[in-house]
């Protein structure tokens, strides 16, 4: 986390640029015979469709990095104050989230290229575990930051964490059930199909269900706590300046939870048409990117308070 925090803005953009190039290359190199067969469309159309996902995704990486780096700049400026420390933790969490998004997407795009090498099971296990643990680390930091903000307001929150756990329980149970009933969870009888997890059931519970459940819980608590801070923080102008930041964070947290949910529920969506899958994907990308844009604008408004002389 310290390394991610210390990385200068320039290196972030250079890193994302290089990784975006690599991601495009890996995606276009991946074999597309199965998709061609499933959706009954030509190779050229499939490459075009891939680009309509890859390019917006790369733009999301850039907007996410830009928004998080603006937020980091603001938090660094006020680091010595109590709100500065809490906001710095949230900024760190957002940067960890962005880096995780980039790394795990690239790891996933390598998998189809490993066919026939015998490396797919190990690669899939590492990729799945990283995909579950990386956001957990990010949301843990965001949650810690939101706790710091909560300590600054005197009004106690009216919602109870127990209610949130009760609300999340059926989602986690449904997710666990789907995971444990996934036909290709540990292996596949068809040599042309890659198994989804290559893990025994206990591994799925320990390395996927528990981390995801904890991530969703921490993310939702953090979003509610930041919203509570925005409503009860002192200072009418300060509260208004926080609007973009808070709603941006809520959008980022909410959409990244949804992205995780959709990715783990992908077996259910296999019967859905291409249009529905792409529509959902574009919607999630748009919400995620707009969240980061709101964060960037919110950080800019807050920075105006600190710059006014």
């Amino acid at each position, binding site marked *: 986390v310290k390394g991610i925090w210390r990385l200068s803005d320039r290196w972030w953009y250079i890193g994302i640029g290089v990784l975006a190039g690599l991601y495009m290359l890996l995606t276009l190199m991946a074999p597309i015979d199965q998709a061609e067969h499933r959706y009954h469309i030509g190779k050229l159309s499939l490459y075009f469709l891939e680009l309509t996902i890859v390019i917006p995704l790369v733009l999301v990486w850039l907007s996410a990095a830009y928004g998080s780096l603006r937020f980091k700049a603001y938090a660094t400026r006020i680091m010595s104050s109590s709100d500065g420390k809490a906001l710095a933790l949230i900024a760190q969490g957002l940067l960890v989230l962005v880096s995780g998004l980039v790394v795990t997407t690239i790891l996933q795009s390598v998998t189809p290229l490993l066919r026939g090498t015998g490396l797919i099971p190990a690669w899939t296990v590492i990729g799945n575990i990283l995909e579950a643990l990386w956001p957990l680390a990010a949301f843990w930091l965001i949650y810690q930051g939101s706790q710091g903000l909560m300590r600054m307001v005197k009004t106690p929150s009216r919602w109870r964490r127990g209610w949130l756990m009760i609300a999340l329980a059926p989602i986690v149970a449904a997710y666990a059930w789907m995971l444990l009933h996934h036909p290709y969870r540990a292996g596949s009888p068809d040599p042309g199909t890659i198994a989804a997890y290559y893990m025994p059931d206990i591994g799925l519970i320990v390395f996927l269900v528990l981390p995801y459940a904890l991530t969703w819980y921490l993310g939702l608590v953090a979003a509610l706590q930041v919203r509570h801070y925005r409503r009860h923080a002192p200072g009418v102008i300060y509260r208004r300046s926080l609007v973009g930041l808070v709603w941006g964070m809520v959008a980022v947290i909410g959409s990244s939870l949804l992205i995780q949910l959709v990715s783990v529920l992908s077996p259910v969506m296999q019967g859905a048409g291409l249009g529905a899958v792409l529509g959902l994907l574009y919607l999630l990308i748009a919400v995620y990117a707009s969240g980061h844009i709101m964060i960037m604008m919110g950080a800019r408004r807050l920075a105006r308070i*600190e710059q006014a002389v």
Partner: protein
Amino acid sequence: VVALYDNIVTVIEGYLGPAGQRFVDRQIESHLQKSPTEITVSDLAQLTDWIRVSLSLITDDRQIVEECVDKLHQLC
């Protein structure tokens, strides 16, 4: 002197929250060239004018700016 400074900070915190003290310190140091705790009642009018200008850069809500300025005038 410290009581006056604290009162100014309290008024501004009502508008800028945790950013209030940093805002007041910057106004005093850059426009009055004093350390924040050296401020006296005689500086208040000038400081209030600068605060009005700076708040207008942060918000377009004139009513809030004037309300804040009125509260600062009442500290005299």
